[in-house]
């Protein structure tokens, strides 16, 4: 889901955290950086699902350790299950996971790899600036996952290697790559975010993302 101009549509964010103080802090930060956006909140997985179904937010900021409803205690499994459900039901939803132990996301590796929306992780030890960066990346459709998920060897899918080959060996643009691979252009863009996350390449002001990607891919011997 790409960020839409404000004049076209008011952005909607949903923040999910069972700790009221955390919820307040995160909401306040988002309000200051996105004054025009509507910020919704939820403290349980059930409430979040209802809110998402009703308001279809552009972005969800979600804690991993959350309760299913107000009668039970918070569990990481509940957060993981909710994210899995959201990725299945809303494949283009932009998600930011804000947690003290984001490493647990390794359990959802395959689902995250297949997710088409932005997906970033913000450890709760991050500063406001870094946290907002993760929100921005998610709104741009970028993937940023915990290091542990990218470390276990370079798990490159054949289609990602094909994209690298077509882009850097044959110098094709996304539109042409999509034609050659018989997929839509959006899928090719999604492949790029996965490739860049696996290589650890993320948007930086003044730097060309594709060139950075090519350099890293050559460094790792993925292309000649």
């Amino acid at each position: 889901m790409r960020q839409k101009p404000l004049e076209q549509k008011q952005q909607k964010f949903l923040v999910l955290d069972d700790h009221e103080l955390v919820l307040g802090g995160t909401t306040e930060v988002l309000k200051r950086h996105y004054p025009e956006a509507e910020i919704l909140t939820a403290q349980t997985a059930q409430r979040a699902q209802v809110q998402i179904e009703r308001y279809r937010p552009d972005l969800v900021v979600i804690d991993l350790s959350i309760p299913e409803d107000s009668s039970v205690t918070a569990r990481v499994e509940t957060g993981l299950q909710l994210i899995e459900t959201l990725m299945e039901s809303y494949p283009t939803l932009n998600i930011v996971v804000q947690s003290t132990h984001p490493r647990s996301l390794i359990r959802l590796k395959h689902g995250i790899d297949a997710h088409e929306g932005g997906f970033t992780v913000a450890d709760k030890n991050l500063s406001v600036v870094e946290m907002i960066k993760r929100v921005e990346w998610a709104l741009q459709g970028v993937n940023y996952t915990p290091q542990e998920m990218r470390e276990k060897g370079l798990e490159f899918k054949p289609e990602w290697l094909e994209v690298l080959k077509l882009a850097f060996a044959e110098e094709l643009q996304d539109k042409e790559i999509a034609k050659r691979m018989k997929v839509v252009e959006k899928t090719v863009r999604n492949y790029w975010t996965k490739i860049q996350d696996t290589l650890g390449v993320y948007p930086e002001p003044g730097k060309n993302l594709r060139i950075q990607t090519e350099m890293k891919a050559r460094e790792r011997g993925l292309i000649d």
Partner: protein
Amino acid sequence: MVLFASSLILLWLFVSYLKLQRALRWWFQQQVRQLLGEVAQIQDGLLQESFSLRRSLELALVEEAALTSQARTWLEGVEKLHHSLEQLSDSLLPVCLGDGLPLAVQQLVKAWERRNPGLEFEVTLPDVWRSEPAERSVVILRSLEELLKMALAEPLSQAGVRISLSLQPSAMRKQTGQLAVQITYPNLSALTARFDAQTWQSLQKVLRILISGQCSYRKQNSTLVCELRW
């Protein structure tokens, strides 16, 4: 008569051993549960509070220019506190234990790598791991830690460490967990100086009593190969 008495004594010893083993396992299980509770309190309580404190300070920092210097000092203090709480939580029990033993082993090795840049670590971990009681994973992790402490005792400027975790097929359609640690020293004397038979025997006993596990080792020139199975 003597044979009968000897059999009775052996039986009594065996039953006593089983009772002692059961008591120790129960005790250890309680300890792990308590630690899990404390880790949960840090993760779901203290770390959340330090997060909201930090956010409040950061927002104040933006609003109140006059407070900038003081607020920055507070902010650094809160950051330190958050980091210390994370470290405390990890030292009690790794949070990632619930995400499976492979991730916990990976975290442990990463910590060793950070502390010992001269040592070369190579880790092979499975993508999928079985569901396992927390106390069993704790025993394996702590055993690995003690094994590395013994085998990589300072001063050791260089050594190659290969760690491999896997599930091996065994009888009755069950799988045996196996952790293999291979350490290649620069020379034989480096190996001999570090291998402590008493520590090794203690590890063997702990594994046997707490998780019915086994461990073995062999020395090949200047390489030590240890295997833990459970």
